C-alpha cells in the first residue's frame, strides 16, 4: 500500500482528543498513550476536563479534552498546541481553536454538524471553521456517528449504547493515522470490559471499523510517521502523577517496615491517590475515608502516633482545613506526610484546573511558629520519588512534611522506567530503645529528631499533646522553655537539608539569564531552556523540588547569572519566598494564573525580552 505524499514525518506530535464530557475522551487518550508507549515513543499527557460530571451536551462548557504529546526524543510537556485535533462535535472545535498549531489537522464528526449542535455551541453560522478563522487547516470530516452505527448494525444494543462506542471509531482512525498497533488497545479494553463481552466486542468492532476507514480513505487522510528514539534500557510503564504518589508511599512504608495508613476525604484533583491506595489491601495498606478533611489528617496523626506511616491527601481548600492538625503534628513531632495536589483557588476556584498557589499556605499557613518540610514533585513519574523522600524525611526526622503536586502532574502521565526497591534509599525508624533514658522530647545533637515510642511498647508510657512541653514531656509554660522549643523545632526542620541534593542547573551553568521554577512546571521550563540554548542564548534553569529547606548551594547557583527570572503559576509566591530567604539577589518574575500550564513559547518570548532589556 503506497502512502505517497500523504506521509508526514515529524519528530514529535501532539494530538488532542476532544468531545462532550460523556464521550469517553479520557479513555480514548489513555488507550492511545498506551499504544504509543509500545512503539517506543516518549510521551506526556494532559487531561483537561470540566468540573461538572455531565455538563450540558454539545456546549463549549461541557467539552472534555485529553492531549497526548509523543515523539522520538525526550518529551517534557503535553505540548503547547496540538498538531491534530479530534473533535466529536462543533463545541469541541470552538473550545480548542486556540490550542492548535498553524495548519493543524482537524478530524471531526461530520454527523455532528447539525443546526442544533451549532446552536448549542453558539455558532452564528453553519460554518464553524470560517467563523473561527481556521482557514489553512486540514479539515477531515468523518461520519463518526453513522460509521459507528453501521459497524454495530448486527448488534442488539440499543441506540444509546451504540453511540457510546463512538470514541473507539475515532481511536481506530487515529491509530491508523499514526501507525499505532491495535493489539495493546484491545488488551486494555479486555481488562476494562472483560466482564461484559457484548460491550467489549462492540468496542473492538468499532475500533477496527475506524482503523479500516482510515486505510480505505487514505487518499483523504494523511498518515504521520513518528520514528522511535533512543530510550534508556529497562522495563517501562505508563504512570500518572497521582498513581506515582500513591505507590511512592507504599514503597516507603515497605522499606521502613511499617504499615501505611491513609486518612483522606475525596477532593478533586487528589482523589485518585485515595482510589489507588484503597486498591492495595494486598499490600496491607489501610485507607480510611474520613467524614471530612480534618478527620482525614487527624486519623492519619492517630495512626502515626500508633506507629504507622500516617498520610493524608488533599487539595488547597482541604489543606486549609487541615492547618490546625498540622500544627499538632509539628508540636507532637510525629511523622506525617500531607499531599496537596494543587488546583486553582482561592475557595472552590477551578477544581479541575492546575495552579501553584498553595506554596505560601504550605510554608506558613498555620498558627504559631510551625515549621514543616515542603517538597514539590516536578513530573508525573517523579511524584513516586518525592512521595518516597517525603516519607523518609518524616520518619527519620519525626516531622510533618508537605508534598506539593498539582492537577497537571496528578492527572498527567508519562512513561516511567520502573525502579527496583533494592535501589531505593533505606528508611530507618527512630524507635526508642532504652526505657531508662527515654524522654519524649530528648534529641540527639545532630538531627534534633526525637525518638518514637508507640503505644504497646512496655516501659515507654508517656504523654504528648498540643500543649507546649519540656524535654521530659511535662506541660510547661516556662517562657525560656517555649523559646527553646520553638528554636529547636525550627532548627530540626532546617537540618533536613541533609536530605536535599545540591541544585543542578539545566542548560548553561552560568550566563545571562537563570530561569527559576519549582514543582510541576519543570517540563515547560526545561523545554524553553533547551530551545533558548539552541538559539545560542546563555540561559540556565534552576528547578526546585525542595522548597523548605532550600538546597544548600542555591545562592552559589544564583550568583552565576546576570539576571534571574522566577516563573510560576501564581502571582509570585516562590519569588516572594526567595526574596525573603536570599535577599541579596534581584528577581524578575513571570506569572501565569489561568488554570493552565505554561506554554513553552510564552516562556521563551519572555526570556528573550529579558535578554534584550
Amino acid at each position, binding site marked *: 500500500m503506497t502512502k505517497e505524499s500523504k506521509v508526514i514525518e515529524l519528530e514529535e506530535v501532539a494530538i488532542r482528543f476532544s468531545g462532550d464530557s460523556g464521550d469517553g475522551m479520557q479513555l480514548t487518550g489513555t488507550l492511545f498513550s498506551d499504544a504509543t508507549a509500545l512503539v517506543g515513543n516518549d510521551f506526556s499527557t494532559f487531561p483537561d476536563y470540566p468540573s461538572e460530571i455531565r455538563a450540558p451536551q454539545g456546549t463549549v462548557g461541557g467539552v472534555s479534552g485529553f492531549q497526548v504529546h509523543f515523539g522520538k526524543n525526550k518529551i517534557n510537556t503535553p505540548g503547547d498546541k496540538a498538531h491534530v485535533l479530534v473533535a466529536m462535535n462543533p463545541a469541541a472545535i470552538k473550545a480548542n481553536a486556540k490550542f492548535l498549531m498553524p495548519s493543524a489537522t482537524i478530524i471531526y464528526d461530520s454527523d455532528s454538524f447539525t443546526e442544533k449542535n451549532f446552536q448549542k455551541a453558539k455558532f452564528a453560522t453553519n460554518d464553524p471553521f470560517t467563523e473561527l478563522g481556521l482557514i489553512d487547516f486540514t479539515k477531515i470530516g468523518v461520519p463518526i456517528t453513522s460509521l459507528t452505527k453501521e459497524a454495530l448494525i448486527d448488534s442488539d444494543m440499543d441506540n444509546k449504547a451504540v453511540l457510546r462506542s463512538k470514541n473507539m471509531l475515532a481511536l481506530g482512525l487515529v491509530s491508523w493515522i499514526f501507525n499505532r498497533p491495535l493489539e495493546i488497545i484491545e488488551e486494555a479494553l479486555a481488562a476494562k470490559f472483560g466482564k461484559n463481552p457484548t460491550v467489549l466486542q462492540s468496542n473492538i468492532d468499532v475500533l477496527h471499523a475506524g482503523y479500516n476507514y482510515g486505510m480505505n480513505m487514505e487518499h483523504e487522510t494523511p498518515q504521520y510517521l513518528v520514528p522511535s528514539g533512543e530510550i534508556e534500557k529497562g522495563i517501562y510503564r505508563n504512570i500518572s502523577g497521582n498513581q506515582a504518589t500513591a505507590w511512592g508511599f507504599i514503597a516507603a512504608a*515497605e522499606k521502613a517496615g511499617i504499615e501505611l495508613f491513609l486518612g483522606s476525604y475525596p477532593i478533586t484533583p487528589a482523589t485518585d491517590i485515595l482510589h489507588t491506595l484503597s486498591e492495595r489491601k494486598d499490600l496491607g495498606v489501610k485507607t480510611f475515608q474520613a467524614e471530612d478533611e480534618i478527620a482525614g489528617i487527624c486519623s492519619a496523626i492517630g495512626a502515626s502516633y500508633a506507629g504507622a506511616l500516617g498520610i493524608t491527601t488533599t487539595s488547597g481548600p482541604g489543606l486549609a482545613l487541615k492547618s490546625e492538625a498540622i500544627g499538632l503534628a509539628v508540636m507532637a513531632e510525629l511523622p506525617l506526610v500531607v499531599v496537596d495536589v494543587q488546583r486553582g483557588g482561592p475557595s472552590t476556584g477551578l477544581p479541575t484546573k492546575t495552579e501553584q498557589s498553595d506554596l505560601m499556605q504550605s510554608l506558613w499557613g498555620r498558627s504559631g511558629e510551625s515549621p514543616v518540610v515542603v517538597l514539590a514533585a516536578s513530573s508525573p513519574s517523579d511524584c513516586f520519588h518525592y512521595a518516597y523522600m517525603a516519607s523518609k524525611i518524616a520518619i527519620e526526622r519525626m516531622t510533618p512534611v508537605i508534598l506539593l503536586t498539582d492537577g497537571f502532574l496528578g492527572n498527567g502521565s508519562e512513561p516511567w522506567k520502573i525502579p527496583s526497591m533494592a535501589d531505593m534509599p533505606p528508611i530507618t525508624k527512630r524507635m526508642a530503645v532504652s526505657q531508662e533514658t527515654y524522654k519524649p522530647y530528648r534529641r540527639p545533637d545532630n538531627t534534633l529528631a526525637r525518638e518514637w515510642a508507640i503505644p504497646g511498647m512496655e516501659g515507654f508510657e508517656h504523654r504528648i499533646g498540643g500543649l507546649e512541653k519540656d524535654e521530659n514531656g511535662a506541660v510547661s509554660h516556662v517562657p525560656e522553655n517555649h523559646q527553646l522549643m520553638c528554636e529547636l523545632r525550627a532548627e530540626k526542620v532546617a537540618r533536613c537539608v541533609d536530605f536535599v541534593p545540591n541544585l543542578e542547573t539545566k542548560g548553561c551553568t552560568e550566563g545571562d539569564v537563570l530561569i527559576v521554577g519549582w514543582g510541576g512546571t519543570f517540563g515547560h521550563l526545561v523545554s524553553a531552556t533547551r530551545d533558548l540554548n539552541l538559539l545560542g542564548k546563555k540561559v540556565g534553569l534552576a528547578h526546585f523540588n525542595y522548597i523548605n529547606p532550600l538546597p544548600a548551594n542555591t545562592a552559589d547557583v544564583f550568583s552565576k547569572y546576570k539576571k534571574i527570572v522566577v516563573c510560576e503559576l501564581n502571582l509570585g509566591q516562590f519569588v516572594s519566598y526567595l526574596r525573603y530567604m536570599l535577599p541579596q539577589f534581584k528577581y524578575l518574575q513571570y506569572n501565569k494564573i489561568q488554570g493552565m500550564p505554561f506554554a513553552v513559547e510564552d516562556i521563551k518570548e519572555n526570556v528573550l525580552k529579558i535578554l534584550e532589556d
Partner: protein
Amino acid sequence: MSEFVYDAKDFKSSTEVRWCPGCGDHAILNAIQRAMASLGNKISDYAIISGIGCSSRFPYYMNTFGFHTIHGRASAIASGVKSANPKLHVWQITGDGDALAIGGNHFIHLVRRNIDINVILFNNKIYGLTKGQYSPTTDRGFKTKSSPFGTVEDPFVPGQLVLGARGTFFARAIDGNLKMSQEIFVEAAGHKGTSIVEVLQNCVIFNSGIHEEITKGDNREDKQIYLKHGEKMIFGVNKDKGIVFEQGKLKAVTIGADGYTLDDILVHDAKEQTTYLHSALIDMALPELPVAFGVIRAVEAPVYDQAMAEQIHQVQEKRKISCVDELLRSGNTWEV
C-alpha cells in the same frame, strides 16, 4: 483475662492533678483507674486520647500512653490509633463541648463506624475551660456568660445522638457514684464497638449543682434508676417503685399500689436491637420518671477496626501482588 495484676495507683502518673478542688473529674479519674486495674490489661496497651477542655487534661494524670490533642478531634485521632493498631485499648476522654459542638461531626461518625473505642463523655452542661459559656447540652433558657438573658436553643441529648448515629453501646453514669461508674466503665471496656458513657459531671466553679436535682437529697434513690440487663426496672429508697410500659409510654409506678404487681415491671434488655425502648429510657426525666443510669444499650454489630483488618486479611490470602517490586511490574509494562 487478668494476666496482669494492677492496683488503681499503678495507673496514676506523677503529674499533679490540677482540676479545681471539688470538681467531679477527680472522682471519674479514680473510677477509671479502678476499672482499668480490675480489667487486667497490660498498662502499655492503653492509649488515652483526649481533645480540649478541662476533662481533656485527663491523659496527663494517667500512667499510660496518652495523647492530648486538639479541640473536637479526639474521636478522629482515636479512630486512627485504633484502626492502625486494633490490639490497643483506646479510650477517649471528652466533654460536652469537645464531643458534641466542635467535634460533633467526628463523634457521630465514630459511633456510626462502631470502632472499638471507649468514649467517656463528661457532661457538665457548660464550658469550663473558657470560663462559663453555654454548651450544646445546656438547657433552654439557662443563663450563662454568653447567654445573659437565657439561651434560645434546645440541647442535644447525648444518648439520642448515639441512637441516631446507630450506636451500639450507650451508658449513663454520675461522677459522685464511684462504684456505679466503675462498673459501667468495665462494661464499656468489654463491649466490642464504640462505647459511649455519658457521665453527669459537676463543674464546681461555673455550673455547680447542675445535676443536684437528681443527685441530692435523702430521696435521691427515688429520682434515679440503675438499669441492669436482665433485671427488673426497680428503683426507689425502698426498692418499691418500678417502670411499666403503658399506652405506648413508660410510667413509674409503686409496686403493690393501684393494682401494679412485680410482674408488671419491665425487664431491662440492653441487647435489644430496636431502639424505641432504649430511646424512651434515655429520655426519662424528672419529675414524672427517674433518670436512667447504667448500660442502656449494648448490642452486637460489626466492628470497624476488625472489619478493616479482616478485609485486608481476605484480600491477602488471594493476592497476586505481595511486594512493591511486583506492584510496579504489574499491568501494562514494556521493555526497551
